[in-house]
């Protein structure tokens, strides 16, 4: 736990350096390119860490199953637009199995669901947004307010918006020279309702099903001694 926190601080410092480097050296204004490079350089260390770590077969299969459930979770809700439990499942995975597993489940769920819905320039952003959702859930799981039901709901609601904001970023970054407050506000205003629906459905799922899902996941964790 302590180690991964140091590691995350390190990664965020690298991100900051990259940000400055991009402003200093890339004055040819290929912002989309720079942003993709940045996202890649934030995510690759996590994957590399996963590669180097000694992961048991049971743990890999468990993570794959969680990612698959998160991706398939959209299916029973096909009739309810913008209500989908993917984020809820990723948050649950982060809370029970920790920050790194949360990141892996989130990022893999994005890739897997896009294998069926079509990959595109949005895939890295989705991987990043869902990965970070799982990671922050894992990092904050020891916080006192995260242990209470309302704290989790608040967290889920905030991520409903954060996720939408990250996904808006790829539109903004690919059009950044046109950036004006009107444009910025226009993009974010157009997504407010979707983000609200996302946030509210997170709250609903966390409030009604959070405890039950945690019980199921913790039971498997304790019974087989996985990812503790």
């Amino acid at each position, binding site marked *: 736990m302590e180690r991964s926190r140091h590691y995350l601080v390190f990664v965020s410092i690298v991100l900051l350096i990259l940000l400055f480097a991009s402003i200093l050296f890339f004055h*040819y204004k*290929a912002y*989309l*390119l720079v942003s993709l490079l940045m996202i890649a350089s934030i995510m690759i260390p996590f*994957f*590399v860490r*996963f*590669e180097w770590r000694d992961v*048991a*077969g*049971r743990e*890999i*299969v*468990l*993570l*794959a*199953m969680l*990612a*698959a*459930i998160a*991706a*398939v*979770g959209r*299916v*029973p*809700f096909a*009739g*309810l637009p913008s*209500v989908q*439990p993917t984020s809820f*499942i990723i948050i649950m995975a982060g809370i029970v199995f920790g920050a790194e597993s949360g990141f892996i489940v989130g990022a*893999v*769920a994005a*890739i*897997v669901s896009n*294998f*069926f819905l*079509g*990959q*595109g*320039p949005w895939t890295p952003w989705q991987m990043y947004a869902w990965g970070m959702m799982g990671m922050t859930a894992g990092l904050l799981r020891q916080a006192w307010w995260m242990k209470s039901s309302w704290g989790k709901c608040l967290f889920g609601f905030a991520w409903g918006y954060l996720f939408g904001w990250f996904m808006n970023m790829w539109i903004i970054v*690919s*059009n950044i*020279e*046109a950036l*004006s407050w*009107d*444009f910025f506000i*226009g993009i974010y205003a157009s997504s407010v309702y979707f983000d609200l629906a996302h946030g509210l*459905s997170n709250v*609903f*799922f966390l409030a*009604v*099903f959070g405890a*039950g*899902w945690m019980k*199921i*996941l913790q039971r*498997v964790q304790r019974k*087989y001694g996985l990812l503790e």
Partner: protein
Amino acid sequence: MGNGIHSIHPFVMFFYYLSIGFFAMFFNHPAFLLAGCLALAAVNLTHDRGTAMKQWMPVMVSMTLLIILVNPFINSRGTHIFFYFRGKQVTLEATLYGVVTSMSLLMVLLLFISLNIVLNGNKILYIFSRILPKTAFLIMLSIRFVPLLKRRLTEIQDVQRVKGMTIKQGTIRNRAKSGMSILQILLAWSLEEAIETADSMKARGYGTGKRSPYIPYRITKTDQNWLIYLAIFFIISVAGGFLGYGKIIIYPKLGTLHFYPLDWVVFTSCLAVMLFPVLVEGREQLKWNYSA
């Protein structure tokens, strides 16, 4: 193995898509981007006569039009003024910027349409299994679980429907609730099953040694030649780009759109990279029809 472009080694294709993606975001001369869009449209036509492209057409058209139409009105930078709209200047620069941005995005979308056809599941995972083996294995497992879970979902839904639990009727709250209950059953069922899968993997020797990958694709002489071809023209294009060819200055004042002789060189080498799949298919056609 497949014919034509499908017989090219995944690494070569991956390099091709990386360089096209790079071009789309690197160059901003309208002629370069238009040529790129047309070349990629041609590439898509050789894949499946444009079937996949047709499905994406509404998205592509609406996105392009939206950016081209909206940009001049929300952005008033630039010095060549067309007219004033509600007290804001509508400029040539902003219009052109909208065109350039939309074409660059269109090119990336076309790239992904082609990528989804050519580098389908197996091939893209093959590439990642050489770079990040454990992650690729995890993704592969996860993809395999998707159809399995879908089958289980229908099974659970069938049973729950008899009990009167459905997501088709009722208030949104109740529908969401029953949808989630179905998922919860799926979770409990599948987690146990996952452990069993893992144990059977272990019984067959998973983790006892280094994972040896099955390599379904071998680099042939042709692949090597194509890779060299792509690399040479890619380097020429990028070097030209860094010298400022293939790019225009839009803000604060529109620069020249003129094509200098070296612009033509960079343009041709870009086209040589972008039309690579068409060349492969064309070569195959010629061989099929005219060789003895």
